[in-house]
């Protein structure tokens, strides 16, 4: 390319609209990934975050993992049975070795569960587990304090760690097993798991290099990626550009504004998945008396056009929601759909004596959820139609949560993904009557309280007959739908994009943890 041509191209290129993109080829074997975030730490139990969990699926294996349609797939546990109401016996896979060369046995599972119960981030989730015991080398029994139907859901978070490797003292005398938040612990820098990839180099915030583990147990996996270079690229436009320019082969979190561009580009494929993260608003009943009236809450719900937001603002990159549970979840109730009806909303406002409306403050983050600030703006405009005047403030994530915790606004936006991939979790955190002792309603911004719903969900959580349990949760969703304890907007979708030849579609899922060990890359000259 001559300089002259370059100069002309840059002038023209900036204004030409009718441009298309040129193809590029995927490099085989080595997979270059551009993720929006890298793992904060290599210690699985130091922080419960998307980045660390994705990493867990590379360097470790869980006992069981989710399939694309929310079934359990055996990994390090091959079989499981409920021995009595509170005990589950799991049979472990034989012939599995850790990266260190140690053999994987039941003692590692017990050690890992005990460590999870020490972890600040997992302690609450593993509360129902009373103890774990190794029956023999390949059998482990997990005992819960009460009958608990979600033990397998929890097992997706049990990534057995190499107990021998993580036991002992480092040169400077600290315990290798200790979990230190934001500290320089042994486990945050050293890894020995059973997973398909070994960490060979890591520069935090810059890149992580992986190499395929030669003695990986899953020899039936067709995955053929031998090396991974993972670069965190937080900036959306840069991440997309890195893929389009052939600098990386696989990216996550394609922003909605670039979906069409990626879809139409040659040489790359867009993979969209229906997500499970509910986006919605909470109404502060402590501060706004009107919100204590169910009719006003219904009016707010009716005034919001969920379908419109999902269609136009999100460009179809979301599924409008009338309940917490997305399809595939135990409590999903197909009857509960959005019910936009502005006339009915006005009637309800009048009935409740608020025909003249009132003013509220609203807060929303501006860099947490897809199009969050725009969604809040749209909702504010919609509420103006029923004479609720909204004073909206948006702020970056780092400032949003401290602000949220003060509960000093009238409406707040929140997105929630159930760590257990189960319906009850939404209720427990978002709408349960606040109880500081038990931690119930930790994110119940509006102090909404409906004891009937709480009782039903609590009962469901100790019901081990899953069919019965699902029925109860569906009922709870229906009750919340009537009482409008939470303004549902939509489930935000997920989008990945991969270069041609990177067959990512089978290994990505709604949980947002790609199983890259099973990824097949076909080199372009095959």
């Amino acid at each position, binding site marked *: 390319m001559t300089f002259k041509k370059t100069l002309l191209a840059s002038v023209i290129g900036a204004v030409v609209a009718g441009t298309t*993109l040129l193809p590029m080829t995927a490099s085989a074997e080595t997979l270059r990934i551009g993720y929006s975030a890298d793992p904060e730490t290599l210690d699985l139990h130091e922080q*419960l975050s998307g980045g660390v969990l994705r990493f867990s699926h590379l360097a470790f294996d869980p006992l069981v993992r989710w399939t694309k349609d929310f079934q359990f797939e055996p990994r390090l546990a091959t079989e499981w049975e409920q021995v009595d109401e509170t005990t589950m016996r799991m049979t472990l896979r034989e012939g599995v070795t850790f990266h260190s060369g140690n053999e994987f046995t039941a003692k590692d599972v017990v050690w890992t569960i005990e460590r999870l119960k020490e972890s600040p*981030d997992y302690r609450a989730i593993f509360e129902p587990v009373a103890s774990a015991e190794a029956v023999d080398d390949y059998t482990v029994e997990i005992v819960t304090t009460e009958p608990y139907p979600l033990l397998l859901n929890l097992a997706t978070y049990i990534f057995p760690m190499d107990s021998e490797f993580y036991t002992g003292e480092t040169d400077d005398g600290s315990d290798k097993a200790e979990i230190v*938040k934001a500290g320089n612990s042994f486990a945050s820098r050293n890894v020995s798991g059973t997973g398909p990839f070994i960490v060979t180099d890591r520069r935090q*915030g810059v890149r992580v290099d992986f190499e395929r583990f030669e003695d990986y147990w899953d020899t039936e996996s067709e995955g053929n990626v031998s090396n991974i270079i993972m670069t965190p690229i937080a900036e959306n436009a840069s991440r997309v550009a890195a893929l389009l320019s052939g600098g990386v082969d696989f990216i996550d979190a394609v922003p909605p504004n670039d979906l069409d561009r990626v879809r139409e580009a040659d040489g790359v494929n867009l993979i969209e998945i229906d997500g499970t993260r509910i986006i919605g608003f909470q109404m502060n009943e402590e501060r706004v008396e009107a919100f204590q009236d169910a009719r006003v809450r219904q009016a707010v719900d009716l005034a919001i056009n969920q379908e419109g937001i999902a269609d136009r603002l999100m460009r179809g990159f979301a599924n409008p929601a009338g309940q917490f549970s997305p399809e595939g979840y135990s409590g999903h109730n197909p009857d509960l759909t959005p019910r936009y009806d502005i006339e009915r909303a006005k009637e309800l406002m009048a009935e409740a004596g608020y025909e003249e409306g009132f003013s509220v403050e609203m807060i929303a983050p501006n860099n947490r959820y897809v199009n969050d600030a725009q969604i809040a703006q749209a909702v504010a405009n919609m509420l103006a139609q029923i004479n609720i005047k909204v004073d909206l403030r948006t702020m970056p994530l*780092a400032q949003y949560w401290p602000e949220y915790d003060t509960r000093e606004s009238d409406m707040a936006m929140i997105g929630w993904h159930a760590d257990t991939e189960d319906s009850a979790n939404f209720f427990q955190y978002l709408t349960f009557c606040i109880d500081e002792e038990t931690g119930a309603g930790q994110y119940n911004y509006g102090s909404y309280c409906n004891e009937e719903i709480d009782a039903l969900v609590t009962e469901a959580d100790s019901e081990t007959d899953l069919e019965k349990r699902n029925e109860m949760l569906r009922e709870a969703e229906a009750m919340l739908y009537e009482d409008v304890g939470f303004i549902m907007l939509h489930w935000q979708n997920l989008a990945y994009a991969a270069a041609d030849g990177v067959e990512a579609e089978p290994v990505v899922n709604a949980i947002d943890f790609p199983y890259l060990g099973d990824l097949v890359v076909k080199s372009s000259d095959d």
Partner: protein
Amino acid sequence: MIAFLIKRLMHAILVMFVISVLAFAIQDNLGDPVQQMVGQSVPESEREEIRERLGLNDPFLVQYARFAKNAVQGDFGYSYFYREPALEVIARHLPATLELVFAATLIIVLFSVPIGVYSAIKPRSPISRLFMGVSIIGISIPVFLTAIVLIQIFAIGVTVTLFPENTGWGAWLNAFFSTEGNMPSFGRGYDLVNVVGNWDTNLATWNGLQHLVLPAVSLASIMLPLFIRLIRAEMMEVLQSEYVKYARAKGISMRRVYFVHALKNTMLPVITVGGVQIGTMVAYTILTETVFQWPGMGLMFLDAINRADIPLIVTYLMIVGVIFVVTNTIVDLIYGLVNPTVKLTGKPA
């Protein structure tokens, strides 16, 4: 001279002190670092424990005293995210930023001097007018837009289909305006050469240089027009002065007049502005490095802000303050060399 340097050292210390107080005073508005360290479902009691352990619950003065006591011993605290001393984190990111600033400076010097001088000598020529026009656009376009346009054209590539493809001239024009891309669009590449310590350089390999080009050009794009216009204006003024007229009258060759007599005096204000602008460029690296995922101090700082990584933010601000003082000091020293009538200690000559 010594007195001057000591004075500047005192400046640097004062700057660091003021910045650290300010940074500490605003830290509550930067967000809650604990929020970034725990999962969403972690109960408040656990968070409180972490806050207590990190000393975030202590009163402002206690926190500041603790920080200051350690800082005078060279310990600026641990970065929450990198889990390392903040100073080490910055030292590791510094070379990438310095190389980027160096490359951008090189581009600015190589282009601004000839273009500026040319358009001062021939202010009416069409080429000069073109340069001036483009430089106005250059000043007005924000750096991230420049960066994204550069990425689109040189990394991703554009195929122009504006002209009819089935005619010979149309196809030729389409091909003429299209670009292939293939330039790297992010990061420093995988082909770095270690120079010493934690300094890996991009300057030693072809692949490394390729990665450096687009970020350096977009960083230079803000300052380059400014310098072209500055050099042009200064040069035009100098060309009007008596000594230049005298030199011409003496029959010295024009080339010698322009490049020896006139240019030397033109460069005086340029050095002053330039030195200060190089400091400013460190600030612009935040944008450039973010778009190009260039793992230097700017990107690190933006990440630190997003994560409310307070020790790292405070340390970065202090270091940048020192960089400003140091560049200003160097500028003053150079200025003294170029113009011996200037007395550094500021006493009247």
